[in-house]
């Protein structure tokens, strides 16, 4: 992956997308091949690869602010500095005023914003996202996708998103890696040339550059589902 790139991995359910992400995160061992971050092989989980999970992995006994600052706390960043950076990310994900709330007081979409801010605040080299918006309702998902795009612009982070949602992959990805059905292999790579600042749902649905690429991915994925 390139620096600052947004890559999306799409494929039929059960093709091993999540497994791939867990291997990249260092949470699962791998048998063949190598995983390297900036030339350094991955040996286990580490703060250079932040992960946003499908479920709400934020800790229920920590407030929003303490969840977001958890990575900095683990890195031993002093309190003053931590508070400043937490405030910055609270504002980035639009959670100002909710700093002292506990996760159970938040909606599903807000919890996932906390998870996103928590990962970004630890300042990883790459952010791995495993179906981050699968558990929220359709309207919230669209809002969160546009916000993630805004955040990608603001932070210029390298992001790898795993999803089964073709629209999501095409909307967010610079490159989309389409996987075959189990056992998952890379089937095709689709590049999407739409500037980040023009990626707004209202605009892209009328943009042939988007719809053509999305339909192309959709066909590739459906071909895999159909064989079964």
């Amino acid at each position, binding site marked *: 992956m390139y620096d600052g790139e947004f890559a999306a991995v799409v494929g039929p359910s059960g093709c091993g997308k999540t497994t791939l992400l*867990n291997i990249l*995160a*260092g*949470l699962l061992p791998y048998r063949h091949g190598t995983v390297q971050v900036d030339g350094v092989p991955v040996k*286990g*989980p*580490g*703060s250079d*690869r*932040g*992960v946003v*999970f499908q*479920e709400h*992995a*934020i*800790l*229920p*006994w920590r407030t929003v602010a303490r969840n977001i600052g*958890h*990575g900095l706390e*683990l*890195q031993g960043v002093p309190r003053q500095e931590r508070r400043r950076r937490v405030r910055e990310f609270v504002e980035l994900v639009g959670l100002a005023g909710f700093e002292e709330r*506990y*996760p*159970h*007081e938040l909606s599903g979409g807000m919890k996932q914003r906390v*998870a996103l801010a*928590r*990962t970004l605040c*630890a300042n990883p080299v790459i952010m*791995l996202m495993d179906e981050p918006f699968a558990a929220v309702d359709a309207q919230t998902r669209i809002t969160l996708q546009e916000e993630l795009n805004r955040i990608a612009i603001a932070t210029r982070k390298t992001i790898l998103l795993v999803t089964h949602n073709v629209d999501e992959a095409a909307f967010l990805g610079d490159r989309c890696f389409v996987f075959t059905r189990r056992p998952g292999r890379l089937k095709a790579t689709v590049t999407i040339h739409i500037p980040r600042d023009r990626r707004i749902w209202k605009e892209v649905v009328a943009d042939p550059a988007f719809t053509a690429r999305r339909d192309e991915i959709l066909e590739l994925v459906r071909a895999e589902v159909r064989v079964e």
Partner: protein
Amino acid sequence: MTRFGRGRLRRILLGAIPFLVLGTLWQMNAVYRWLAPIHMPPPAAVWSAIFTLQEGCPGLLDALRQGSGCLLTNHILSSMGRVALSLLVGLPLGIAFGVLAGIHRRLGNALEPVGVFANAISGIAWVPLAIVWFGVGWRTTLFILLNTVFWLVFFNTLLGVRGVPRVYEHGVLALGATRWKVITQVYVPGALPSIVTGIRMSMGFGWRALIAAEMIGGDRGLGFMLFVSAQEYKTEEVFLGVLVIAVIWMLTDRACLVPLERWTIERWGLVWRPS
């Protein structure tokens, strides 16, 4: 008063009715003498038993220092002191082993059956063996208490740690946490509601077991006091002892343990289910 406060007050008053009925019957017996005082001493006699037992006690400070004349308070402090000591030792041990068994799958599978086995034996069942091992005295009562506290806290901690979703661990590992940080910041807080439940249960069972152990294998404490008073046919002291045992437990449970349990569970955002 708020609606909640009024409902609570009504509940407390409702719960007090049976006690008032029993108390009235008890007092009526004192007047009409249905049962002989040797079997059923009047409330006034039980009340004055407090002062008989505390006769040689010069003051509150001496009672706290366990002075020689303060019989009742000495027995109370002795029983409560043992509970505190067993908590001090049993709690860290139970939590430590419980967390270890909870995160290490093999160790957990190896130790879980022993936990079930140990918790199946009531504390009192150990008393005869404990007397053989330790003789009559504080060692026996402490052993009974420790045994109860350790296994209950161990088992509840183990279950609590196992119930912590793996995704919490993964999330924190991806933030750069070490294994030790995962234990202290994910597994222990995640298991806390379960640990507190374990403490509450162990206090309940431990207190009962302690009284029984003191009766048979002790040389002081409330259980011992009950036993000796009964042998000397001081029924009013037996009544007093039983009442003190119940009141101490109710106060500990309602004023400390239940609020502690409720606080951890509510804070965690889990649904509080009244027990």
